[in-house]
């Protein structure tokens, strides 16, 4: 689903002495099917921005459009239920929001809230639990008897149960061990491709942004600071460091290599495999 953000401004506690501008003049177009990464440090406006994408926050001025739904400042109160169903948010530490007696009931809660019948909701629960790589036997367990990694998967299954077209992920791997991190990110990437989703990933990890994203936006002090494809973003190391961010390890290493060898190699996929290939090619050329 296409997302179009136009001159979005958001003020917290508008009209009070505590008024604070969290977003200023953000214009961003995310094409249908894009894997989009949003980076920036705490307080840069990332979380405020994504909460506009399913109507949890309303613009103070400007507008946000997802597919057919247009949310604009001063607009009429509208029914956002259809939008919330299409744009699913996986919040930080989503397992903190589990509450039902069983995993199955927890996953069924969302769909039934949107009018799906009980038997249909059961089917959905059984489908999505497989999508997140957990066995059917987990359905009858209490979510609170599961490990941290399993709880995270159950919470994600609850979002998938709504069959969203847009998936908004707010640091979905925070607190997981390195193996769990790779598993969860690969899961999202697979879902992104097979279900033809539009994905917005909020992350601190330059590695994840470079590995998965088609496009990257960097937020700083409530404004859009940089926007482009990974090659464009990661060629601007100084601009990134100025706002407390850095380039991925692969690029860091390549810069060290370029400095030593006097070459000017560059990366497009930012993977370790690509980096190894570039370096071995130049070694072979020298050998000849």
């Amino acid at each position, binding site marked *: 689903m296409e997302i179009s953000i136009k001159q979005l401004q958001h003020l917290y506690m508008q009209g009070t002495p505590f008024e604070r501008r969290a977003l200023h003049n953000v214009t961003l177009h995310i094409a249908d099917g894009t894997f989009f990464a949003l980076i920036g*440090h*705490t307080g840069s406006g990332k979380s405020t921005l994504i909460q506009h994408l399913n109507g949890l926050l309303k613009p103070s001025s400007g507008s946000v459009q997802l597919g057919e739904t247009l949310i604009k400042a001063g607009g009429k109160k509208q029914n956002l239920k259809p939008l919330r169903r299409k744009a699913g948010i996986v919040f930080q530490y989503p397992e903190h929001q589990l509450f039902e007696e069983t995993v199955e009931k927890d996953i069924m809660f969302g769909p039934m809230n949107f009018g799906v019948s009980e038997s249909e909701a059961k089917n959905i629960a059984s489908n999505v639990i497989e999508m997140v790589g957990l066995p059917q036997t987990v359905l009858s367990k209490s979510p609170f008897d599961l490990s941290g990694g399993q709880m995270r998967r159950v919470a994600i299954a609850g979002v998938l149960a709504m069959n969203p077209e847009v998936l908004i992920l707010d640091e979905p791997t925070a*607190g997981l*061990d390195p193996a769990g991190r790779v598993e969860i990110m690969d899961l999202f990437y697979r879902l992104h491709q097979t279900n033809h989703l539009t994905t917005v990933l909020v992350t601190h990890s330059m590695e994840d942004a470079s590995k998965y994203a088609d496009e990257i936006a960097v937020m700083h002090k409530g404004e859009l600071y940089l926007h482009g494809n990974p090659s464009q973003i990661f060629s601007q190391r100084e601009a990134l460091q100025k706002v407390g961010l850095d380039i991925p390890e692969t690029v860091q*290493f390549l810069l060290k290599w370029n400095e030593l060898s006097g070459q000017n190699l560059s990366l497009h996929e930012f993977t370790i495999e690509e980096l*190894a290939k570039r370096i*071995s090619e*130049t070694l072979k050329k020298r050998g000849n």
Partner: protein
Amino acid sequence: MENIISVKDVTFLYPGEENSTLKNVSLDVNQGEWLSIVGHNGSGKSTLAKLLNGLLLPNEGAVIVSGKYSTMSQEDIWEVRRQVGMVFQNPDNQFVGTSVQDDIAFGLENFGVPREEMVKRINESVHRVGMEAFLNQEPHQLSGGQKQRVAIAGILAQKPSVIILDEATSMLDPIGRIEVMQTVRELNEKEGITVISITHDLEEALSADRVVVMKMGEKAAEGKPEDIFQQRELLLSAGLDLPFSLKLSEALLQEGVELDKGYLTQEELVNAIWKLA
């Protein structure tokens, strides 16, 4: 080197659980070292951390601090808690005061420190974490990294021997992470405070003096980072990843570029490759 904490054959079972979270774990922590404890989610590393200052008590075995204080003893427990401070994961869950100085004072009040001494210690400890300009600030005015530094100041005010970081930087952004790690590194290097860091950050563990790998409630390995991080199978089976430089070395080998040994840092590796050219 002297032991500051001795974990002796500890087994721990959470009430109501069938399997022990920790099984026969023994570990000596050397005075003044930086020890990183790594392992998969559910490996028992946070449970181990909570046993080190008596927040949890072992079902079997013992934890001894400074050679003589047992966490199992009602008499010793206050001395254990004073010596072994802990910084938790979530900066918002450990700020109890309404201002920075109140927050630090809270811990001291619990230990019955007289007011004059308290003021002195608060001023001294905020200075050591670089938060002296924030004494009267309220918690919501602070960033995550700043809150964690206040937590560290609260521990310092009690003149501890050991600081345990239980994934203390995992909820912080890159800037906050660097702030907190620099603060702790200085305390470790300049003041000799022992640091035990429970972490998923491999690059951080690489710069530790020693690393302990936990796996399924047992100690799977213990040693210097340069030895531990060469052990591919061990790391992967413990839910960890290989450090960047080793992954790149493997990828280079696939491309036919062979190196004489495993290099752990980017600098070492890039220089080693350059020598091949």
